[in-house]
């Protein structure tokens, strides 16, 4: 009897949690399989579910979707570039600070941590001005470099934590065998921290794919913008095709969700450990 009561209590918590979590996502899905009339009717399931919206998006048959594939490619390209550049920058810095004990490493690490803790929305204003000074405004390099700036501090921190755990004897053995620093880096260090590299690379990639604010500030040409900025443009009209907006949003949301679940193993152990140390 007492056991039954416990189960009932758990279910009573579980159901609201499931509804709370899924409602906005279900609502998005519902719009994507509804015609405009049915989407606006407030029904919880359309009478005639249809995939027509997806056809319209994929064939770019709407004013707001004129450059859908181009913008999809922009998002992808920028995310991959940010992931790759962040990995190179952060792996080098973490190796240098943690394994080579480079002088000034501590200071650089503190600078990185400081950057990590400054809210990105506050850094956006000076970053925007600086990009203007550098003549990078409205180029995709501006967004790539801005996102590398935001992603690399945390990447360095996570990789440094992982590096500190490697046994020091490895480095000594490599040095005695006459390995060069670069050989130690490539042949010993990188393979050993590979799981953290996966976590950090995924983190940077997702951060760039998901970013709205910087993309919306730094890019303006319809052919250069990324998908989230294009989604924001839908709001500029009073009679926006919300069913198409939600369809595009769903397509845009699927890749990061899939990547997240595919790499969850690495993400949870690699990132949560670094995020908050008690």
């Amino acid at each position, binding site marked *: 009897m007492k056991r039954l009561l416990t189960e009932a209590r758990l279910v009573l918590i579980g159901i609201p949690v499931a509804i709370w979590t899924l409602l906005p996502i279900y609502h998005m899905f519902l719009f994507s399989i509804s015609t405009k009339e049915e989407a606006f009717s407030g029904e919880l399931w359309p009478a005639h579910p249809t995939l027509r919206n997806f056809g319209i998006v994929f064939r770019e048959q709407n004013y707001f979707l004129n450059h859908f594939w181009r913008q999809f490619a922009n998002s992808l390209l920028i995310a991959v570039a940010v992931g790759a550049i962040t990995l190179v920058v952060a792996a080098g810095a973490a190796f240098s600070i943690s394994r080579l004990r*480079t002088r000034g490493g501590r200071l650089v690490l503190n600078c990185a941590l400081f950057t990590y803790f400054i809210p990105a929305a506050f850094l956006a204003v000076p970053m925007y001005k600086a990009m203007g000074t550098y003549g990078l405004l409205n180029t995709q390099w501006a967004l790539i470099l801005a996102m590398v700036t935001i992603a690399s501090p945390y990447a360095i921190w996570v990789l440094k934590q992982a590096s500190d755990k490697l046994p020091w004897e490895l480095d000594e053995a490599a040095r005695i065998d006459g390995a060069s620093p670069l050989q130690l880096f490539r042949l010993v260090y990188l393979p050993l921290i590979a799981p953290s590299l996966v976590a950090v690379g995924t983190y940077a990639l997702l951060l760039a794919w998901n970013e709205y604010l910087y993309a919306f500030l730094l890019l303006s040409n319809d052919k250069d913008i990324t998908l989230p900025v294009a989604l924001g443009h839908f709001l500029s009209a009073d009679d926006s095709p919300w069913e198409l907006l939600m369809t595009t949003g769903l397509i845009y949301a699927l890749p990061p969700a899939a990547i997240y679940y595919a790499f969850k193993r690495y993400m949870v152990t690699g990132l949560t450990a670094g995020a908050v140390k008690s």
Partner: protein
Amino acid sequence: MSTVALPGVEAATADGGPRRRLSPWQAWGLALLAPYVAVFLVFVLYPVGYGLWLARHPQSYVQLFADPVFAGSVVNTLIFVVVGINLKMAAALFLSGFFVTARPWIRWLSVLFILPWAVPSIPTILSIRFMLNPEWGVVNQVIFRLTGADGPNWLNDRWIALSMAMLVHIWKSLPFWTMILIAGRLAIPGELYEAASVDGASVWQRFRFITWPSLSTLYLTSAILSMIWTLGDFNSVYLLTGGGPADLTHVLATLGIRYLRLDQVDLAMATIVCALPLVLPLVYFMMKRLSR
């Protein structure tokens, strides 16, 4: 880049003696560190310095304080942070206890529960925005069907709109903090709970004397970090309400961007400078904590 790497190399080779053997290692160390140092100097230090220089005029602050939108934003920011953080962290603490309960269906639910964190915020916030549409949104249509009365105009009232923005923020970030606290709870040795149940401790006593003492440091750190991130939350407010109605729901993060879009960079930077007394102590606390 080279300006950072070269002095070290020269110093090491010029020294000679025992240091000379170390120099390739030192040189590589500096070379591998250089890309990040360059990123930091070019995209953090220079912009921040330039930004602070732009914010030097006292006139900007006079103008800023005279703008009623600014005073409103400060109030909104404080409410958003204080109420938002406490609601979110209390919920995360409670739900982490729920999710560590060993049941197969709870494991499945925890996989779904991560979704708001795993999907990008733009489409889901826009989805919520339409759900709250007074005429066509599903929320008011359900209210109408159940009660026959019209629901409120959710995003057209300052306090309701701000509360909704807060809920959006909580919806998005609750999974992350719950995950962190789950990890914290799983690190507590199971024997403590076994001993407690032998002694006949109640649920509350187990929480009060075992869970909370082990979790409190993590909880505090999480709350501080979450506070910093909440101060910088642009999306939840901007994409839900756009700062409206009549610029009444702005927070400092969206207000800075609003001035920037209006081409008033001085005011944008002044807004950020005004947020620094709130942000910097928290940043200092976090850096202390992580540098230990």
